[in-house]
């Protein structure tokens, strides 16, 4: 069967699915959906359908990115709009089957929005919701809509047409097209992709390799995982186009072992490609040969760095080496190698499908197209988002993210993970693109965006990131190995309240040295969280050093928990729950925290019933409390109330 015939068949099957006589149920079963219980929901749906003898089609789709509303279930009844339901539990799922499919009640109260044409009373259109309205879905256009384990769905939606187009072009023409699109590497550094391909194309040698970097190690980022789980073929199509343009006949996908579902879906995708002659020798009847192998990363953050990643594929310790020679000249097994991030490959595919001009119509002068971000932390609507470059932080946090969790105050946003920086509220109206983030002292990074509120301590955040990079430093070069350790020591000292005058300056000096003299980008960017937090949140550092106070009430050695005698009603819950028996009390007695025993785990604060709110957390101040339990203090008001009741 030719590709054209395959496309026609998949298209008619896809249309038949969209316009079916049977009810269709779409279920988001990427990792976050599963973690939220999507598989139990599937079982409940199947059981309910069977019990009621309803013949319906169930399609497992990927992640649309609305993680806060997972598990998501879309139901499309024949002749009706497809409706997306949020936070579906097995019980709700069974109810939805009964209400929607049997009784004709579309349950607007459980719905998030409608998808596609058609209007349903009381249910907004999904893509008109604030969370989705300012998003532009290019990389994620199929996520949540196609079955990622079915290549036919991808082909029906225009998949592999970019490859077909590319195979009809000269490799130089493809590189020119990618250059014109303005695509820059989505892994973090933002190097122009077309140029990178050109270097490797022009390198001497018959044997060349391409690598897909799916070693998404930034804590707080899962864009790549989600894309691989939801639309693996878009990444693979990009790899095929790149391999053809560069002249490589072998490729590797280096994916974290912590992503079992992504690995499984990639393997399925590769098998299906082989069946359709999209992989192997003479792809689609051309003289282009390409083979792909999956390599599982074994858990080392530094392997996200190109030369370390190459060493790891070769079966060595994943340690970076100095460049030049660049991988484009001497990479895997000493051959010219081109490494791109998952998202970059997916962008290359869509650029070839829809054209460079179309792609470049999104974004800003220096940053074209869109970028996916993981919007997480202290924000109402966490999830995976895709926005055009040039959007402001404010739009992302307040429109898409729905503002700060529990109405708290915004403090900062961290972009670029451990290599990036923490930006304060003065940057809320800054346009998000490569250059503006770099000039602010942060980086675009691969797309982690962690929102922090008034309860986040910036010293603690800097310490957290540095403890991560310090532990992940491969140890090869001195500035990174020793420098990050010394910086961490100082930060630990500060957050314990043992900071001394001059510590902040020493920290800055060390940070500059580590940044300027480390061998690879891990060390070169590791000081960024420290430098930006000192630059923008200097007061907080000062409070830790000179007042021995943690204003955000986070750094354990600087905080204490107290039980307010006028509020405690002696219910005994905190006493029972305290894991270290640091609370004294008794029935109808005001409870007391024994400060020497307290490990400051915060359990008492968590469990104290909100109607009492008797536990407080403080730093740098004193509260007068009894040192032994005393009888509960009953206020006059309550006395009267008590008498009245009797």
């Amino acid at each position, binding site marked *: 069967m030719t590709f054209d015939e395959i496309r026609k068949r998949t298209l008619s099957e896809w249309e038949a699915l969209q316009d079916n006589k049977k009810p269709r149920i779409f279920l988001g079963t990427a*990792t*976050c959906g*599963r*973690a*939220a219980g999507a598989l139990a929901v599937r079982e409940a749906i199947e059981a309910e359908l069977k019990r009621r003898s309803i013949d319906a089609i169930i399609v497992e789709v990927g992640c649309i990115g609305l*993680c*806060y509303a*997972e598990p998501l279930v879309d139901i499309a009844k024949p002749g009706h709009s497809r409706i997306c339901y949020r936070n579906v539990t097995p019980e709700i799922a069974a109810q939805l089957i009964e209400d929607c499919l049997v009784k004709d009640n579309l349950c607007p109260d459980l719905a998030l929005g409608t998808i596609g044409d058609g209007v349903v009373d009381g249910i907004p259109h999904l893509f008109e919701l604030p969370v989705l309205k300012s998003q532009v879905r290019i990389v994620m256009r199929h996520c949540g809509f196609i079955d990622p384990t079915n290549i036919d769905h991808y082909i029906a939606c225009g998949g592999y047409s970019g490859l077909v187009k590319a195979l009809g072009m000269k490799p130089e023409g493809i590189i020119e097209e990618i250059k014109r699109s303005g695509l820059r590497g989505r892994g973090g550094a933002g190097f122009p992709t077309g140029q990178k391909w050109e270097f490797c194309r022009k390198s001497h040698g018959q044997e060349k390799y391409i690598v897909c970097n799916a070693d*998404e*190690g*930034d*804590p*707080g*980022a*899962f864009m790549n*995982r*989600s894309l691989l789980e939801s639309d693996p073929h878009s990444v693979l199509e990009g790899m095929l186009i790149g391999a053809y343009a560069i002249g490589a006949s072998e490729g590797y996908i280096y994916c974290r*072992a*912590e*992503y079992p579902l992504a690995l499984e879906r990639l393997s399925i995708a590769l098998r299906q490609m082989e069946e359709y002659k999209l992989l192997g020798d003479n792809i689609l009847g051309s003289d282009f040969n390409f083979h792909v192998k999956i*390599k*599982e990363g*074994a*858990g*080392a*953050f530094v392997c996200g760095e190109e030369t370390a990643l190459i060493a*790891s*594929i*070769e*079966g*060595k*310790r*994943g*340690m970076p080496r100095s460049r030049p020679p660049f991988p484009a000249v001497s990479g895997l097994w000493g051959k010219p190698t081109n490494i791109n991030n998952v998202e970059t490959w997916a962008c290359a595919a869509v650029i070839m499908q829809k054209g460079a001009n179309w792609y470049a119509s999104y974004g800003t002068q220096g940053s074209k197209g869109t970028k996916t971000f*993981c919007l*997480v*932390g*202290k924000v109402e609507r*966490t*999830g995976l988002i895709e926005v055009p470059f040039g959007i402001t932080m404010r739009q992302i946090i307040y429109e898409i993210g729905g503002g700060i969790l529990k109405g708290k105050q915004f403090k900062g946003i*961290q972009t670029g*993970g451990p290599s990036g920086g923490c930006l304060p509220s003065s940057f809320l109206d800054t346009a998000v693109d490569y250059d503006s983030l770099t000039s602010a002292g942060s980086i675009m990074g691969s797309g*982690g965006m*962690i929102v*922090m509120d008034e309860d*986040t301590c910036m010293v603690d*955040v800097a310490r*957290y*990131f540095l403890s*991560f990079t310090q532990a992940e430093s*491969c140890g090869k070069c001195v500035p990174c190995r020793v420098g990050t350790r010394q910086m961490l020591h100082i930060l630990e000292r500060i957050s314990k309240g043992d900071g001394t005058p001059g510590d902040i300056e020493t920290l800055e000096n060390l940070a500059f040295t580590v940044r300027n003299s480390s061998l690879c980008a891990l060390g070169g960017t590791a000081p960024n969280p420290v430098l930006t937090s000192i630059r923008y949140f200097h007061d907080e550092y000062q409070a830790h050093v000179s007042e021995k106070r943690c204003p955000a009430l986070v750094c354990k050695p600087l905080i204490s928990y107290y039980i307010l005698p006028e509020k405690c009603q002696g219910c005994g819950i905190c006493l029972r*729950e305290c*894991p*270290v028996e640091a609370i004294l009390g008794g029935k109808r007695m005001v409870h007391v925290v024994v400060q020497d025993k307290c*490990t400051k*785990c*915060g*359990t008492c604060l*968590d*469990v104290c019933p909100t109607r009492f709110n008797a536990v407080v957390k403080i730093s740098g101040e004193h509260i007068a409390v009894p040192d032994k339990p005393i009888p509960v203090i009953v206020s006059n008001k309550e006395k009267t109330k008590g008498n009245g009741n009797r």
Partner: protein
Amino acid sequence: MSKPLSQILQTYQGEKGALIPVLQEAQIEFGYLSEEALSEIARFFGASQNEIYGVATFYAQFRFTPPAQHTIKVCLGTACHVRGGTHILDRVESELGIQPGDTTKDHQFGLERVACFGCCALAPVIVVSDVVYGKMTASKAKDILAKYGWEGRET
């Protein structure tokens, strides 16, 4: 019954860069990399045991002691950290009386800290025997331990 290591090694005969996949497969099969396994792998690759051990210890994935019945992985990714992941770790540590990387004396429970599972939207997260539990609190974590048969601290 596990398949013998020699059988795993055979499938990688002549393959470039096979060391890490071999170590991964051996760990899946036997639960950990024993000294015997490492020396057999070294012989297969014609390398010193030291070299093999050097590669294996570089990566966080590999373990050199038998795993516990249930491994509790506490995520300390950024999102989990700012939403209180360390409180969860502290609580699990004090409940089980062990530090990350250790197992309880009866080998029932092991504790690990993980840099990120990529379930950030559900932060803070713990994973017990590959099941993800999101939106954790210290007290919920204790209930989850109980679900896996943890009967409380020995007094």
